[in-house]
């Protein structure tokens, strides 16, 4: 049979699937994982809204996804997503951010949303660089990396964004690389169903800008294989020394807290209490 079959995730797109990302960019793998998670949960796509910011990660949902999409200013997605969730709490709000976007200019919004435990699913595409603007060092770029703003090597220690989210109070945190697309999808499912602030960090290949920094320019396959080699499951990491873990990506579900009051529930409670007086 020579009939063309449609991609099983095509129904989630506004028109043709046409990501204009660089060849081999991890964005598309993450997009597939998000959509597959939603598909397996069998949630009506119209009951989900996406918020994204400025940076390559912003292009995952906007304008491609065939549901409500809000594409906002750099670093502010989580703040906008908070207002949206407060206004329409019955809608699931998924936020696609980047490491530069939410780790740098948006850091304050990240830690406060985690502290408030507002029911959002934040998917942080961590490519270790500011990709869209030409490869500048990001707060996640490893020490001594040579980038367009650190020609002599970066002199700052990078953030561990997942640890930051946990410390700020996020009630579900996971990290995967794009190499682990299936576990990523499963964590996204869990995050969507989790009532509270979920943070999923995805270490993702930027073959053009970050590939250049690590000598794998335009070589997404090598970058993926590097993720495979350097990934350590959280369980195994507990048996390893700090030295052994130095360049590794600790992947898995890093934190889960239940029974922490969620912000929209608290708002409802305040309304009930205010009426009583």
């Amino acid at each position: 049979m020579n009939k063309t079959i449609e991609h099983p995730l095509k129904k989630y797109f506004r028109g043709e699937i046409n990501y204009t990302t660089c060849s081999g960019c991890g964005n598309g793998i993450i997009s597939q994982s998000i959509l597959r998670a939603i598909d397996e949960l069998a949630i009506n796509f119209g009951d989900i809204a996406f918020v994204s910011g400025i940076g390559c990660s912003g292009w995952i949902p906007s304008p491609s996804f065939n549901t409500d999409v809000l594409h906002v200013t750099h670093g502010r997605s989580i703040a906008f997503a908070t207002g949206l969730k407060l206004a329409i709490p019955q809608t699931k709000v998924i936020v696609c951010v980047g490491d530069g976007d939410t780790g740098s200019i948006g850091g304050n919004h990240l830690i406060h949303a985690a502290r408030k435990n507002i029911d959002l699913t934040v998917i942080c595409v961590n490519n270790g660089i500011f990709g869209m603007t030409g490869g500048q060092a990001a707060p996640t770029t490893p020490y001594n990396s040579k980038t367009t703003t650190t020609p002599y090597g970066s002199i700052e220690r990078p953030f561990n964004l997942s640890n930051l989210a946990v410390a700020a109070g996020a009630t579900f945190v996971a990290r995967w690389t794009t190499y682990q697309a299936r576990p990523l999808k499963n964590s996204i499912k869990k995050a969507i169903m989790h009532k509270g602030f979920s943070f999923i960090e995805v270490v993702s290949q930027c073959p053009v800008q970050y590939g250049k920094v690590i000598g794998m320019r335009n070589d997404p396959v090598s970058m993926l294989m590097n993720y495979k080699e350097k990934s350590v499951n959280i369980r195994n990491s507990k048996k390893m020394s700090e030295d052994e873990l130095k360049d590794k990506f600790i992947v898995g579900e890093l934190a889960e807290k239940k029974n922490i009051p969620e912000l929209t529930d608290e708002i409802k409670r305040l309304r009930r209490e205010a009426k009583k007086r």
Partner: protein
Amino acid sequence: MIQINKDACKGCGICIAMCPIKILEFSDELNNQGVHFPKITQEEKCTKCENCMIYCPDFAVVVNKDEK
């Protein structure tokens, strides 16, 4: 049962690397984006693991589980 939308392909090679039984390789042809896209070499060996579909950043590969 592996359908490759050759013009959607950007030639990244990820599907080829992620195939566990190595039955994908770059074709000699160029698509309309000017890159080599993958072709299937021994389709009968395909286990329908769906790696090629799941890891394609451009949604260019579809694995049809219904067809043999």
